[in-house]
């Protein structure tokens, strides 16, 4: 038993000396727990996700205005009525085409069109009721926003449009009871008029959100996924592709550490290869491997899951090049700041899994809170995934990915310059 304890103690002594192993064992799990808990579980109101919705009120009636006001008061929704700044008093309102474009571009995950005649015929009871249909324009890559909006529409119909509901109920009553007397009708109109008076308290009470969906007729149109064979495969191909690109770039960048440890780096730097040339050569190699990895991933996705690669080749090539370049420079930077393989393993695991979680490689960013979505933009994953989504999901033209390409190129340049600077430690003493 004492020998067993001696072995255990020896391992403990080693762990205390090996900072990288220590980080892997204790810091990494806690860091990940914190990050994932923030992303998946949320931690209070600050991180709870609001669904952004662009609303087009084609009806413009009192009823539709009350309805919109009710939607605006919903804490789970962030309502936009104008493509420009919402508080601009003379700014134009969304048209249906603009709202559709906003969904297509990913500015909002969902849009609502309130058609003409909604105020007249907003609510209907019973089957076959002749109601004006609200139209939800959805981006089905977001599985949460459309059903959430639909549910809230029913709730707000109950709480914000009591007059319309009463009229509709009265019509049903007349239909099935054989009609009201003129006196009864006059009293009902008076009562409905009283309800219609503008109320200062536009905010509906959550307690009143009775179930009984289907008060307002809603038609959902998936404007992005309707022609796609397999909508989620793009997300996974890009998300996992970028994450593994980072891992392999960091691993391959570690060759630099091995060269330093074996004395090979010293020998190379005594030849006609300077440190800048050496790092550029490694960057070229890592970028080529990265492009090959992404190509393999997407070709495989195309063959097996119907990912629409063949119709998006130019966009794919540009995004693959930009992503591979930035990832490779990141790998070189990690390798240059580390002093041993073990350090590199710890640092790359920590940073890449963190970047992948925040940047949307593991969990789509549009499902995160706005705050986390903004934080995610510090990662190259987020920019790479946004670019791939624009090409493959939103079918946007090539020029539309310039911000993503520019940011990835800039990140690549910054990472490379840091790597070059830190690599001075291996140059002449």
């Amino acid at each position, binding site marked *: 038993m004492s020998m067993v304890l001696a072995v255990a103690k020896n391992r403990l002594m080693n762990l205390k000396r090996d900072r990288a192993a220590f980080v892997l064992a204790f810091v990494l799990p806690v860091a990940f727990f914190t990050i994932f808990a923030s992303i998946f579980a949320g931690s209070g109101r600050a991180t709870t996700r609001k669904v952004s919705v662009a609303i087009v009120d084609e009806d413009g009636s009192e009823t539709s205005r009350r309805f919109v006001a009710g939607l605006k008061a919903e804490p789970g929704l962030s309502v936009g009525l104008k493509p420009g700044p919402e508080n601009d008093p003379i700014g134009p309102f969304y048209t249906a085409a603009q709202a559709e474009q906003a969904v297509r571009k990913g500015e909002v995950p969902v849009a609502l069109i309130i058609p003409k005649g909604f105020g007249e015929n907003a609510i209907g009871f019973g089957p076959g009721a002749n109601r004006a249909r609200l139209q939800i324009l959805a981006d089905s890559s977001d599985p949460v926003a459309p059903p959430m909006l639909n549910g809230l529409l029913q709730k707000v119909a109950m709480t914000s449009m009591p007059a319309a509901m009463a009229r509709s109920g009265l019509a049903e009553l007349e239909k099935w009871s054989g009609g009201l007397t003129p006196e009864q009708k006059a009293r009902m109109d008076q009562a409905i008029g009283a309800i219609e008076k503008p109320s200062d308290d536009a905010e509906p009470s959550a307690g009143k959100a009775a179930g009984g969906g289907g008060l307002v007729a809603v038609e959902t149109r998936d404007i992005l996924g309707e022609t796609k064979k397999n909508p989620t495969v793009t997300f996974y191909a890009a998300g996992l592709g970028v994450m593994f690109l980072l891992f392999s770039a960091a691993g391959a960048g570690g060759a630099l550490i091995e060269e330093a440890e*074996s*004395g*090979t780096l*010293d*020998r*190379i*730097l*005594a*030849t*006609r*290869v300077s440190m800048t040339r050496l790092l550029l050569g490694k960057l070229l190699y890592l970028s080529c491997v990265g492009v090959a990895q992404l190509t393999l991933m997407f070709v495989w996705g195309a063959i097996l899951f119907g990912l629409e690669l063949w119709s998006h080749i130019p966009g794919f090539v540009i995004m693959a090049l930009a992503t591979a370049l930035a990832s490779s420079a990141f790998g070189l930077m990690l390798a240059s700041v580390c002093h041993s393989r073990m350090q590199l393993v710890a640092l790359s695991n920590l940073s890449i899994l963190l970047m992948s979680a925040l940047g949307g490689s593991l969990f789509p960013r549009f499902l995160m809170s706005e705050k986390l979505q903004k934080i995610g933009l510090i990662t190259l994953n987020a920019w790479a995934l946004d670019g791939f989504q624009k090409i493959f999901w939103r079918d946007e033209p090539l020029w539309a990915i310039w911000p993503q390409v520019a940011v990835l190129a800039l990140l690549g340049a910054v990472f490379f310059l840091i790597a070059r600077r830190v690599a001075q430690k291996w140059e*002449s*003493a």
Partner: protein
Amino acid sequence: MAGSPLPLEIRSLSKSFGERRALDGVSLDLAPGEILGLLGPNGAGKTTLVRSVAGRVVPDAGTLRVLGFDADDDRARAVRGWVPQEIALYALLSPRENLWTFGRYQGLSGGALEAGIRASLGWIDLADRENEKTDRLSGGMKRRLNIAAGTIHGPKVLLLDEPTVGVDPQSRERIYAMIGELKGRGVSLVYTTHYMEEAERLCDRIAIIDHGKIIASGTKDELVRKTVGTRQAVALDAAQAIPPALAEKLGRLGAAVDGTGVRLSVEDPAGEIRTLLELFHAENVPVRDLTLKTPTLEQVFLQLTGRELRE
């Protein structure tokens, strides 16, 4: 050769790492086709000196020219070769791939590179194993490949840093032969070693470095003459305690007597040993053992540095 730059010209070279002064005004020349042995205890500054010549250490002061070029000049890189002490090769690559890599890094390409690879593989006797992984080769083979990787571009000045560390005697002989061939091609070499017999056998000239300074340099004979002198040491062991009468006569010869042992420094061994033996014969004292020692580089080193070479 008048007016041609020397393969290596070092003047007042100094380098400190923090408080530690690794090189302290080193001046040294390397003549064309010469093998210069660089000896020194651990931490004496020889690695810093070699790395300075290799362009891997930037001196704080002084000048260093490789065939007239600054050490970090591309032209110096082209004419200089460096064989580091470590097996600085890619273990997963084959000998051919390693040679391709370092040949290419030295600026060779096309036919010249292929010719360099073929010649090197033949020279180090690895042509039949050119495509095996390097980590499967024996220690001696790796050492030879390590040398070839530093010489594939045909350098005129070669730095060899302990090229025989950890190899068996047979492989060591093979490496000595390779060094002889390099010298035959007119390559000028700086050779650092811990093996005194290597320095004696291979080097035309030896420089001894200690505390960052060259404390002596010259041929082996010159060093011996300048330090321990040319006198040889005679040690005699008698079969019995030396009687006082004999001890007195030995004292007159300048010998030191201790019990049965006698120590004597001689200029003319044949004559002086004869006199010594005649004294023992005359006193009828039997001699059990007699040795004559010629001064060695080891003694020179010990005398100059106060330390053994392998300390």
